[in-house]
């Protein structure tokens, strides 16, 4: 049974369904090189032993990575990882990981 109301609403519903399907894709920008690996250790949980990066100032992440790379900031493992990224890559990565994914 299809009522006239359903007939009128159907094309809109299709559009909404298409939008819903496409929405997560639009919300997600492609990860710059290396960035998608970070969530293997850095989760969304605040206060975890390995700190969450979500919501941090990207500049702070860049500064931390630079300090890890130069040895200014002590680390167990991030000094070894930070050395794998150029300044430009680090900036792109910081901007991406500071967002919620």
């Amino acid at each position: 049974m299809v009522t006239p109301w359903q007939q009128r609403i159907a094309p809109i519903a299709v559009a909404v369904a298409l939008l819903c399907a496409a929405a997560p894709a639009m919300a997600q920008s492609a990860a710059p090189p290396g960035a998608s690996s970070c969530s293997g250790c850095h989760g969304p949980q605040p206060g975890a032993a390995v700190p969450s990066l979500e919501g941090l100032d990207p500049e702070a992440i860049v500064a931390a990575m630079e300090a890890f790379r130069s040895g200014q900031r002590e680390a167990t493992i991030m000094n070894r990882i930070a050395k794998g990224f150029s300044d430009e890559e680090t900036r792109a990565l910081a901007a991406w990981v500071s967002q919620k994914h």
Partner: protein
Amino acid sequence: MPGALSRRAFVGAAAIGVAAIRSRVVAQTTPRVVVVGGGFGGASCARELRRSGFEVTLVEPNPVYTACPFSNAVLAGLRSIEAQQFGLDALEREGIRVVRQKAARVAPQDRRVSLDDGSTLDYDRLVLSPGIDIRFDALPGYDEDAAAVLPHAWKAGEQTLLLRRQLEAMDDGGTVIISAPSNPFRCPPGPYERASLIAHYLKTHKPRSKLLILDAKDTFSKQRLFTSAWQALYPNIIEWVSLSSGGKVTEVDAKTRTLVTEFGRHTGDVVNVIAPQRAGQIAQEAGVADRTGWCPIDPVTFESRLQPNIHVIGDATIAGGMPKSAFSANAQAKVCAAAITSLLRGQAPVEPKLINTCYSLVAPDYGISVAGVYRPVNGVLTDVEGAGGTSPADAPPSFRAQEAVYAEAWFQTITANVFG
């Protein structure tokens, strides 16, 4: 699955009264991706692909996945097997269709996967994340029956519990033997973490016992760190026999719990045979494994070098410098999903970088790590020079304790990332 059904029902209802053709267009424009394997690689990849809006089907026969990382702590009585176990409920809630069947065959020309029950799944892109299989044809005397007596415990679950029971039942003063394979194999530092944690159990519960490692290699992952930790913590327990000292096991006699090497015979009270391995069976069936038994891939997309539209991730791959680890599988899954997303949208995939981090516990409060950053160079995933490496050799106990804390934190985070 409820999510996928309800969405389909919604679209279906919406299409009533509209030209039928339009609903077909909707159905056809959503690409279908099938993922085989619900471990660290497969589950991660399925979630990422679902977030891209694709219709994702995950094929995994086991209702519960038992994680290998930290399973050596189960052997040592430091952790329950339940802490290693994860379901796929969160994935189903996200709209991933989970099919609890074993993938039997792949027809690359038809883009079709056949399942054990005879049903089939069509795909636009297929991701295989089958992990490893033990090669029961590679070591004379070591077949599936032998593994029920001399466990490999290199797939976590029943085998882990079997080896744990054997260690518990062993008398003080007994000998444990671990046979370690040549490269490549799943989790390169794993045999040595296992030796360490079993030695910890022996030291604290059966201090007159010994542990012998018979190795088919002359060098191994994090070797300096393991060796110096063994000297400090387990000096009279662990003995490592290298390949050139006659460590390579060439034959197994399960009845007498004896391992035959090129130089002699070793009989143990508990014998753990970490046998040679290859990519999981479905990789062989799909024709994506080469003569080595492992799968060559394009390092940008993880598409098979041997079959189009089939991607392979995780332990099954030949991934250049990247070790076969859960961290690698998760990192590769995300890069592979991003590449598939680009390909299905007609865009060029981004050249990736990937990170690996592997922690090993030498004792409950003593962790060590190896890390690496990788990028494709001439078609091979290659270490970025100057990055990566192992924990320092001269670190204080506080550093080792911190890495043990990070090891546990890593496990909590990655399993949440993979399984929800």
